[in-house]
């Protein structure tokens, strides 16, 4: 399971970094989302990886650390709100600037 989680984290981060470095706001937003997913998953795995272990003491033989789960919940809510904001900001700026380049000016393309 550890290899699987590590691979997934790696793929998510790689895609996220690649997309954030793209010149269009849409791919940047997607990249930010992927990065925050990667971070959330990473934060979750910091409570050690268990299977079949509830986050309650005494309910089963083994229990999972509940704190990272609570942290991830907070982080997911925050990153969801931030993503919503960035999407609206990107849309608004594409309308306002007549293109979706992160610099606000697109030298290659005709304006929308």
């Amino acid at each position, binding site marked *: 399971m550890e290899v699987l989680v590590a691979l997934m984290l790696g793929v998510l981060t790689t895609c996220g970094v690649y997309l*954030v470095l793209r010149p269009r*706001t849409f791919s*940047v937003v997607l990249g*930010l989302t992927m*990065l*925050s997913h*990667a*971070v*959330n998953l*990473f*934060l979750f795995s*910091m*409570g050690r990886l268990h299977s079949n272990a509830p986050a309650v003491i005494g309910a089963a033989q083994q229990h999972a650390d509940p*704190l*990272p789960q609570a*942290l991830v919940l*907070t*982080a997911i809510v*925050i990153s969801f*709100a*931030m993503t919503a*904001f*960035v999407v609206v*900001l*990107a849309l*608004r*700026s594409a309308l*306002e*600037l007549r293109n979706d380049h*992160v*610099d*606000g000016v697109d030298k290659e393309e005709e304006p929308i």
Partner: protein
Amino acid sequence: MDLEVLVALPIIIPLLLGALSLTVLSNHSAQRWLGAIGTALLLLCSVWLLLHTREVGIQVLEVGSWPAPFGIVLVSDMLGAIMVVLASITGFATALYSLKTVRKRFERFGYYPLLHLLLAGVNGAFLTGDIFNLYVWFEVLLVASFALLILGGERAQMEGAIKYVTLNLLSSALFLTAIGLTYGLVGTLNMADIAVKMASLEDQKMVTVIASLFLIAFAIKAAAFPLFFWLPASYHTPQVAVSAIFAGLLTKVGVYALYRVFTLIFTADTGFTHEILLWIAIFTMLTGVLGAAAQFEVRRILSFHIISQIGYMILGLALFTPLALIGGVFYIMHHIIVKANLFLVAGLMYRLGGSFELKKLGGLYRNHPGLAVLFLIPALSLAGVPPLSGFFAKFILIKAGVEASAWWAVGVALLVGLLTLFSMIKIWNEAFWKASPEPNPAVPAPTRNALLYWTIGLLAAMTVCIGLFAQPIYQMAEMAAAQLLNPAGYIEAVLGGTTP
């Protein structure tokens, strides 16, 4: 009454005010009164907290009475309390300035609730003793600053906001990763507890990795070299009052976080981390001031100067001697007031001169000598001319640098001081001294600026007072630095001496 609750008041008051002013969103005068009186109340409470902390020592509030390493604690040590007072001063000045400059259109879109929320986030970040809670307060202040930044929705604002938002979210992701690693390593989130457990770890390599992650995350927030590009792209775009509070406070939250974690938690490997900090400081000072030299728009010049000043503050942390930390804290105190004031002056220059471009400005000294004096006070203070506040701040830092034999840092600090003076003189020559480019501006300048003059005058008076009565301020900075250099006091106050 138990005075512990005092620690929470600087967070509760702006949160309540934000909620209240949201309920009277359509009543403009009620919003303005809430803004001005509420921030004045906040200022009173935070000054009380500072005095109380100075008298009694570090104040700790266990939120919800959950005991320390498990629940969230709010801690007010000298550094935190000083920062809260500075935040409240900036908030109060901004609220006063907003009374006359923020249009009803912006008020209808929630200018005042956002301002209060921003202050709550900033104060929360200064007072919390829990690393994950610090992240949450960062996000609170970030989301408020996002909305304030694009209030008005002009093209330049959108363009700047995209960079600002992207880079800040990236920094939050790094910050969260660092928190995750910290928890995985020591299994706690309380900063004092982390400090205790990190020090007892056998393998210090992982600690250095985490330290580097925190360093990058906070350096982005603080706009340090080479991660500052979001700042000059965005700070000149919003309303002047918003620019002023951003310039005064937001990057300083990053600096504060650096001060907190690199004095409390990551002190084992100072040869590595603080050496990096030293070079970051040197290059931040230099690139900031050189960037400013190339600009001809007042707000852009001032934005680049924020960066170069951040370098001085990080220099204080990087040298990591008692005197250097005193200098760093003193510098933060001086800088927040002066920088916010300069942006407010720039706003008044725009109101009276009709432009932010130096080429289009002119003749302000002839027409408005009062404004010229009020510009000169913070401008010369920023450059470090005695007897203003900036002189003592720079003097202490440079003396500390000489004592630590950090000659490169001392040389660059002196050179940057000179270049700052050059930059300020450039604004003075172009905007105030030279003749007005057109005989009469087409639009008559708005009148009734008395309140704006009073606000700027108030902040300028503070700058002069910090310079003239430097001793009590120095003593406070000395106490703050002593607490930073001796984290045992902080740890004992938080954990109550139960853990060794």
